[in-house]
Structures are given as structure tokens and as C-alpha cells.
């Protein structure tokens, strides 16, 4: 089992009685995380996505509690005082504030935008109110991290906005997922600029994966997405074969205006 396509497929099939959440539950590791695939012996940065899939599928309190515990105990390596000091003093080519951290792709590495956004979304969904202690702390830190690491003109790249003095170019999926994670935050200039970037670029996006994430984010911010959904439909040519993750996220994007957007956070 590969974690990302499985989670996205379960979310896309959320209204289907044959969607088998047991597959996901079986692969949860004893520490509460999920590996990137069945044999993986380490927790993956996609554990947040797995928790989102569980939240979408129904109530699985034991599994969700263990996943939350793992998420709260896992952080980017820059959160350690020694690396924090290094990034402040000697290793300064990447512009970021190491006090603001989130989640890594792999334990023992730095925080990156996509795993941080997915974990943040999952925590916000799991704790719609009464966020206290460590939950509140991690949500606050990761919101700050996303704001700190945005590209100078809005949007998000893989992890940082400026490297060796050069501004990074935003990516569709990272920008969309970060915006979904920040949806319940007070609107600010960064969110507005990122939305403008996404809206402008999405209409000429040639790829179903990027366009689907863009639709989901714009829909969550109540922007009209019908033209983009029509564009997405035109990508489905008979000779094209897409991977499961792309098919699933496209299905979610086409369905979000009628069946709901599973990446939205209800506050």
C-alpha cells in the first residue's frame, strides 16, 4: 500500500460503501504514524494526510488519538536548539526563522511546506475548538512557519521563499495545500496575494494534479471554480492514464462544489 494514493482515494470514495478504511487502519504503526508505503519502517510526513482521511471516513478515535500523539511529538530538525543556533549564525543561505517550525517529510530532517500544511489541517480538523497546550502551541508554530516561508510575492515553494538571495517560484500544489491549512486564520496580505497568484495561474495550468489542488483551495475560499472544473474535465482523454493519487484528487476537485470539500476546516 502506498500511503498518499490510498488516503486520497479513500477521501474521494468517502460516500461509497465499498471504501475500505480498514486498509489504512491496518497499516498504522504502533507509534501512531504511517509509513510512506507498506514496508516503510519510519513515520512519513504524510501522516497528517492519513489522519485527514480517517477524519473524512468517520470516527476512529483510537487510531486518531495515536496519530495526533505522533504528530505532536514530531517536528522539523530546525526546532532543536543546536540546529537553531547553526541556522542563525553560520548556515544562513536559506532565509527562514528556525523558531517557526512544522513537520518534516522524514524524521530527522527540516520542516517543509506540504507535510506541515497537511499536519496542520489534520490537527485543526481534529480539534475544531478548545485547542489547548501542545495542540495550540503546534498549530500556532506551524501557522507562523508557513507565513515565514512563503515566496516574496505570495504562494509557496517546497520549503523556503528565498535561497542564496534569489526568490523562489511558487508551486501550485504547495500553495494550494498551504492555503487550505491557513483557511481558518484571519485574512492577511500573504493569503490574499497567494490566492491572487493561484487564481491567475490556475486557468493556464496544464496538469490535472496541480489544477485539482488549485480548485480545492480556491473553492475553500469561496472563489468560483466552475471554469477550472470544466478545464479539468477536458484533461480526461481516453489515451491518458493517470496514477491513482491524481485521479483521486481530480475526483475530489470535480466533486467539491456538490459533495463538500474534505480539506475545509469547520471552526
Amino acid at each position: 500500500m502506498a500511503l498518499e494514493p490510498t488516503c486520497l482515494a479513500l477521501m474521494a470514495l468517502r460516500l461509497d460503501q465499498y471504501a475500505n478504511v480498514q486498509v489504512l487502519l491496518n497499516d498504522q504503526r504502533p507509534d501512531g504514524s504511517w509509513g510512506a508505503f507498506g514496508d516503510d519502517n519510519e513515520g512519513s510526513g504524510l501522516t497528517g494526510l492519513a489522519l485527514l482521511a480517517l477524519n473524512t471516513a468517520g470516527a476512529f478515535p483510537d487510531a486518531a488519538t495515536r496519530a495526533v500523539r505522533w504528530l505532536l511529538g514530531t517536528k522539523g530538525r530546525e526546532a532543536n536548539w543546536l540546529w537553531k543556533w547553526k541556522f542563525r549564525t553560520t548556515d544562513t543561505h536559506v532565509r527562514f526563522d528556525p523558531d517557526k517550525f512544522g513537520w518534516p517529510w522524514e524524521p530527522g530532517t527540516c520542516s517543509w511546506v506540504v507535510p506541515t500544511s497537511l499536519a496542520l489541517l489534520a490537527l485543526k480538523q481534529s480539534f475544531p475548538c478548545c485547542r489547548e497546550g501542545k495542540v495550540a502551541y503546534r498549530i500556532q508554530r506551524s501557522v507562523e512557519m508557513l507565513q515565514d516561508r512563503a515566496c516574496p510575492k505570495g504562494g509557496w515553494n517546497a520549503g523556503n521563499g528565498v535561497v542564496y538571495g534569489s526568490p523562489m517560484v511558487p508551486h501550485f500544489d504547495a500553495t494550494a495545500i498551504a492555503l487550505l491549512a491557513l483557511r481558518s486564520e484571519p485574512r492577511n496580505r500573504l493569503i490574499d496575494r497567494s490566492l491572487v497568484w493561484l487564481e491567475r495561474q490556475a486557468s493556464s495550468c496544464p496538469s490535472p494534479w496541480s489544477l485539482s489542488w488549485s480548485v480545492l483551495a480556491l473553492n475553500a475560499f469561496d472563489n468560483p471554480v466552475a471554469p477550472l472544473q470544466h478545464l479539468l474535465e477536458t484533461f480526461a482523454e481516453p489515451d491518458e492514464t493517470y496514477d491513482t493519487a491524481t485521479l483521486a484528487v481530480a475526483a475530489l476537485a470535480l466533486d467539491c462544489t456538490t459533495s463538500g470539500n474534505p480539506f475545509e476546516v469547520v471552526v
Partner: protein
Amino acid sequence: MTRRAVLAGSLGIAASTATSLPFLVPRYDHDRRPARSRVAILPATQYSEKLSGVLWDALKLFNLDVTGKSVLLKPNLVDYIPEAEINTHPLLIAAAAECFRRLGAKSVTVGEGPGHQRDTQLVVQGTGLEQYLKEQRIPFVDLNRDEVVKVRLRADYSRLRDLWLPCTVLAADIIVSIPKVKTHHWSGVTLSMKNMFGVVPGVKYGWPKNLLHWHGIQQSIVDLVATVPTHFVIADAIVCMEGNGPLAGTARHLDRIVLADDPVAADATCARLMGLMPECVPHICGTAMFLGNMSSDRIEQLAAPLTYPPAPFQTVKEFGHLRARAGLAAAAVR
């Protein structure tokens, strides 16, 4: 000999010694260096349909036996940023596919796992590669999301010990690295060996493959290429990148394609063409101890002679020591 030359020479030796320090203690299974390596430097001033003919004539010089074998072409596709010279040009990839089919390969597949961009299809479409893949019916595998197997590394400089690697890569009989020649702000250069970071699956190690950075980029490159054999190199040095590569540098024409049957010899030659000293690039230095040939006297030039550019490629400040002084570089080439 002037005092200045002695000083420059001493600095060069000191830099080279410092560069090879992490690799002084052997941590590889055995010495696999060939007695001699072959490199062909081909003039090519533009990307056009003619590349196929140029490549075909040059490949014949190597007498490659690929009959009945599966060939994996590994281009260098990092991200899609319009107008930026980041990625291997699709015409060169298509030309390579055509040539290996003509040579009798059982199958030719293009495989890549972009290091920065999670949407591989966006990169393949945006660079124009998709059109050629469709026209020539060449299969493409997203190595970031392929089936993976855990593999014990055949060198241990990074202390990673093992890596999950894509089945498509492990099953290929012949792996051809097709890098875009450019400078890189973390590793000094991206050439055929750094290009192999693209076989490390993002689904496990993320975007970018940050674990390799934490274990030392130079050490990780050496361990990876010791484990995943690069049988042949076709380097895109027609339009290269200098300065703050791999994403934010500026275009620089070299007007060459470099072919080689040894990735170490290929990278040493490309570095010299860039006006950089391969002896100061740690991963070239490290692999030259057991995997291939860096020294000019063990590299046979099959086509155009190695020449030195009027000015070395620009690098970020930290890799300024790679930029060879013209006199020293010319002496090294001789």
C-alpha cells in the same frame, strides 16, 4: 616559476587535499576503476532535430553493446520554470531514445523523480518532453512514485547504510545519465553523478530529498553512484547554467555535448569545460578513488579536444575555489 605560480599551486594542492578529506578512509566495497575511460566532446550549437545524427555518429565510437537490453534514460528534470535553463533539453532526450533503439535495445524508458516539484507531469509537459514521448511512444516512469525496494549501499561515506530505490532503476540493464551541465549552490556542480539524486524516491524521502542533505550531499552522491551504476553519460552542455544554480542561475553557452563510458571521467571533463577544477569537487574526488577516472592521462578523448573556456563558470561564493586560474587549468588539461 614565479612566486605567484608557486603560491597558486600550493593553494590548489591545499584545496584539493581538504576536498578529499571526507574520502580519505576507504568506505567502499572494492576498487572498480577502469584502466582507461573514453570521453567524446561533440560540438553542437543548438537544439534541433540534427542532434540525433550527431549523437548516432558519436555513439558508434564507443561500440556499445545494448542489443536485447533494457535501457533507462535518466534526464535531469528538477522543476518547471519557463525560460530557465534548468532541465535537460527534450530534443536531446528524444535523440538518445532514438539512438538506443537503433542500437538494438530491447526497451528504452525515460525515468525521473524531480527533486523539487511534486507534480512530475507538470515538469514533463512544461519542458516539452511529453510531446516527444508521445510521438516516439517512449514510456516514462515517475521515479518519485515507483515501486521501491530497500537496497544496501555499496559505499558508506554518508552513513545512510541503505536506501529505498525504484524497481525500474534496479531492473534496468543499462542506465544512461543525461544531466544538464550547471553549477549548484550546495554541491558545486550538477553533472552526471549529482543527477542520480533523481532516482531517490520522493514518496519516501520528500521534496527535496532532504535526508541526503543532512547526511552530506557530497557523501550521499558518492554512496548513491557506487550503488546505482551509471553505464553511460550524455551531458547536455549546449546551453548550461552558471551562478546560483540549479534553479536561479543564468544561461551560459558551451555549445557541446559530452559522451562518456565512465561518469567520473564525464564529470571531470565537464567540470574542466566549465573552467572548474574537478579535483576540488568532493564527490568527483571521492568517486575517483574507486569508481572511475578523473585524471586526464587516464581519459581518452575520442572526438574534439578538451578546451578551456575564456572565463570559468560563475559559482556562489562558497564554491569560488572551484574556479581554476587559466594557467593552472591549462596545465592540468595538458
